[in-house]
């Protein structure tokens, strides 16, 4: 009564909700890098929004169902076939025992979410079943999936659902991220602070669950570049010694010693999970209260399809 991992893809992990309230002990959030897409996948199966699902990065896995099982695909766009026939994202799909699901290379966006009825069995540590690779806990033995692994679905049936068009979260190759000034933005010299919000940044090759480097002009800070370690959360944009902005994502360390020059607003933090190397990003400057008003608007919009949106975003 399991699902076999035939090929794992580039980096596939089991993810659910973030770990919250433990950063003072050094425990990062983890959880789906794009939690909205995780919730959308689980919705199609009648699961709680945070049931553990596969988060596949850039190249999807090949899975063999050894049990009849409903599943769903959301997130980035990628070709997907079940026994050789194309299957669509954003609707409940039904596999029979023996069926093979092949998710190809991701075309636009960075992460596909594969959820199954009931969610997948995963190790719960510190309040979540999400995988945290650096410490090796959560998910499946704290690591990325490997060929030969077996996954255990906790359900099998689900009613057919389709995500309404207006809730199919789009993915792009050029993005705008709403961001506010942060604790050390004033350390940027005048030219750099103009450049930060006026550059079409390119997502660098170093783009993972820890964080993403932006390629473009080098920024300079007026201090010597390091400061006493201070708390950071996902979405923090640091200016490391090389002057290239580095945006922290869900697995980033909980404190940092580099100047925090901007903060991606909560309304757009889920987008970080879909940025891939080569994508373009503009930082859209917002006053903090303006960003919160936009968050409130977004939450109202999504509540109709995802009633738990307050917790998801």
């Amino acid at each position, binding site marked *: 009564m399991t699902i076999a991992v035939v090929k794992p893809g580039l980096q596939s992990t089991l993810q659910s909700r973030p770990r*919250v*309230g433990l*950063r*003072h*002990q*050094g*425990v*990062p959030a983890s959880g789906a890098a794009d939690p909205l897409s995780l919730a959308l996948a689980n919705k199609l199966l009648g699961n709680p929004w945070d049931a553990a699902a596969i988060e596949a990065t850039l190249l999807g896995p090949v899975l063999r169902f050894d049990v009849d099982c409903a599943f769903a695909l959301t997130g980035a766009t990628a070709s997907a076939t079940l026994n050789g026939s194309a299957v669509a994202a954003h609707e409940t799909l039904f596999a029979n025992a023996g069926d093979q699901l092949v998710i190809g290379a991701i075309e636009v966006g960075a992460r596909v979410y594969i959820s199954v009825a009931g969610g997948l069995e995963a190790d719960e*540590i*510190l309040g979540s079943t999400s995988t945290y690779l*650096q*410490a*090796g*806990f959560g998910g499946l033995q704290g690591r990325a999936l490997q060929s030969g692994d077996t996954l255990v679905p906790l359900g099998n049936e689900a009613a057919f659902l389709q995500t309404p068009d207006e809730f199919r979260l789009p993915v792009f190759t050029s993005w705008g991220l709403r961001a*506010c*000034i*942060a*604790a050390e933005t004033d350390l940027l010299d005048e030219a750099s602070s103009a450049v930060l919000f006026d550059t079409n940044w390119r997502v660098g090759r170093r783009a993972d669950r820890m964080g993403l480097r932006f390629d473009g002009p080098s920024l300079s800070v007026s201090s010597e570049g*390091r400061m*006493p*370690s*201070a*708390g*950071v*959360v996902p*979405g*923090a944009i640091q200016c490391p010694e090389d002057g290239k902005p580095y945006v922290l994502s869900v697995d980033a*360390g*909980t*404190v*940092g010693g580099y100047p*925090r020059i901007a*903060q991606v*607003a*909560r*309304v757009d933090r889920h987008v970080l999970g879909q940025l891939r190397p080569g994508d373009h990003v503009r930082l859209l400057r*917002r006053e*903090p*209260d303006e*960003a*919160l008003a936009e*968050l*409130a608007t977004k*939450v109202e919009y999504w509540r109709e399809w995802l009633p738990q949106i*307050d917790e998801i975003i």
Partner: protein
Amino acid sequence: MLTRCGDDLFTISVASPADAQALAAHLRRSGHWLEVIPGIDSVVVRFDALQTPAEEVRTALESTLEKGVEPLYFGNEIIEIPVFYGGDEGPDLDALCATTGLTAGEVIELHTSREYTVDMIGFTPGFAFVGGLDDRLRVPRRKEPRQRVESGSVGIADGRTGLYAMASPGGWSIIGRTPLQLFVPGADEPFVLRAGMRVRFRAVEADEL
């Protein structure tokens, strides 16, 4: 000083790591905040803007700062941390001796001869920033951070001792290793150390690793 540093973040500047920890512990007890992250000279508070408006958060934090908070107190207990110094476990001990002009024996003597306070836990689960290092052992971080520092490694940098509770990249000068497991993920109490606790290092032989 209280500053908004993001749409759902405030940062509070404080005078010392002890002040940061005391304020953070107080704020955490209220249960109102998603994260309360003490740093070396600051506390970052992340609030749930969908539950509490920012102005209400500001007022609540200001009121706490006005009233002041109790210092953290962990009693007289001193946690002893066994360390094997040098060798493959402490690959930077020789370089540290060269920089400071001390012998390995003198470094170990200085490092084990006093009590320290855990200033902060953070970066990775259980990583401890231990304050109070002798000035003669003061060195900056390494210019080239290592891609992997082993779990249990004991490093020094910027006047502190860093204890790697798990393997991670790192830029501290590694002088030894402790066999003590500082982070046990599945345990009821996964963290051996908390900020504010007092510790002492004791030199041990390789067979105790």
